[in-house]
C-alpha cells in the first residue's frame, strides 16, 4: 500500500532455466512521511502568526491654558459623540440644549450615517467631531470611534473629557432604558 513503484515492467514470467536473480525492492512506503509532513504543517499553523499587528496613529493636541492659543470652532459645525457603556453612542449637534432636546441615542451601526449627513450639511471648514468617552466606556469603543473618523474621512476630530452634565444625561438615559 502506498508505495513508490520504481521497479520496471516486472512481473512477466521467466521461462524455465532462467536464473532468478534476487531483486531488492526499491519501493518505499511514503505514508509515514506524509503523516510527518502534515503533522509539521499543523504545528506551524498553530504556533505562528500570519498577520502583523497594525498601528493607528493619533496626534494629541497640546493643552494650553491661554485662550488665544486654543482652537476656536463654530458651534454649529460641531458634532459631539458621547460613548457610553455597552456600545451605546449618544450624540448631539452644536451645543447641548438646556432641556437636552437635541440629545439623541444611537449605536455604532447607525452613527456612520449620522456623521455623514452632518458632514454633508456643514461647511468642511467648520466641521469638527468631538468624541467624549465616559467612565464606563470600553477602550474598544474609543478605537472604533477613532476608526470611524478614518473611515468617514473626517479631517478634524478630538477626544475631550466628558462634562458632568453630559454624564448625568447618559446615566439618566441608561436608567430609563434607551431612547
Amino acid at each position, binding site marked *: *500500500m502506498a508505495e*513508490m513503484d520504481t521497479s520496471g515492467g516486472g512481473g512477466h514470467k521467466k521461462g524455465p532455466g532462467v536464473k532468478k536473480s534476487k531483486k531488492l525492492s526499491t519501493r518505499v512506503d511514503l505514508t509515514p512521511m506524509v503523516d510527518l509532513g502534515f503533522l509539521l504543517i499543523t504545528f506551524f499553523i498553530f504556533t505562528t502568526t500570519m498577520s502583523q*499587528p497594525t*498601528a493607528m496613529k493619533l496626534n494629541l493636541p497640546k493643552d494650553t491654558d491661554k485662550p488665544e492659543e486654543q482652537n476656536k470652532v463654530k458651534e454649529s459645525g460641531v458634532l459631539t459623540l458621547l460613548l457610553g457603556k455597552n456600545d451605546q453612542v449618544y450624540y448631539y449637534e452644536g451645543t447641548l440644549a438646556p432641556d437636552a432636546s437635541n440629545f439623541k441615542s444611537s449605536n455604532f451601526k447607525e452613527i456612520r450615517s449620522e456623521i*455623514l449627513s452632518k458632514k454633508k450639511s456643514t461647511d468642511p471648514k467648520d466641521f469638527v467631531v468631538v468624541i467624549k468617552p465616559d467612565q464606563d466606556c470600553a*477602550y474598544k469603543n474609543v478605537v*472604533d470611534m*477613532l476608526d470611524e473618523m*478614518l*473611515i468617514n474621512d473626517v479631517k478634524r476630530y478630538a477626544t475631550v473629557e466628558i462634562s458632568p452634565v453630559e454624564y448625568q444625561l447618559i446615566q439618566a438615559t441608561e436608567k430609563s432604558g434607551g431612547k
Partner: protein
Amino acid sequence: MPKVKVARKSTSIDMTAMCDVAFLLLSFFILTTKFKPSEALAVVTPNSVSAKAAPENDVVLITIDKEGRVYLSVSDKNTSEKRAIIDAINTSKSLNLTAAQKAAFARANSYVGVPFSQLGGLLSTPPDDIKKIKMAGIPVTDTLNNQLVDWLLAAKQAFEGRKMELLVKGDNDSKYPSFQGVINAFKKNDLLKFQMVTNPEGVPQGTELYRINKEKNK
C-alpha cells in the same frame, strides 16, 4: 457459463504526490510566518482599518489589560535605553535598587506593572515566577499620582536624539479611564504623537475611505 470475473483493484495509492504537496505547504508556512512572541500579558486588541504595520524597534509599549491595569515595556533591542530608564527612575525616586535588580529590568521581555513602592520586590523576582505574580499596574487614574508620567519622562530622556515609538496596546474590554490616564501622562511629557496597536480589518465597502483608497489605486 463463464464466470464473471470481478476485477480486483489494488488499494494502494501512490503517495508521492501527496507527500510533495504536504512538504510544499510546510515550506510555505515555515517561510512566510513568524513565531508568535511569547506574550506574558494576554491582551485582545481592537480592530481598525489602519494598514500600517506596528513598529518593532525603539518601542516604548504601554499595555492596558482587561482590568485596566497599565504596564510598561521597552523593545528588547534597546537594552542601553532600558538601563538608562531604570537608572533615571532609581535616582529620581530614590529607590536604592541593586545592580541585579537593574539588570532584571534590562532583561529581554521584561515589563513592569507595579507602583514604585513595589518595584524593588518585582525586580528581585526570578524571571520564571514573573508570570505568576499579579501586578497591580502602574497607577495612572489618579491625576496627583500618575506614575506613568515619571516613567515616560525617564524614557524620553533615554531616547534623547532618537525617534521613540510610543505604542499603546489596550484590551477591548479595558475601561476608558485608564486610557485617559495614559493620554494624560503623554500630554504632561509633551509626547503628542503615539500609535495604538490594532488588528487589521478590511475597509467597509461604500464608505468614504473605501472610495478614497480606490481612487488612489487607480
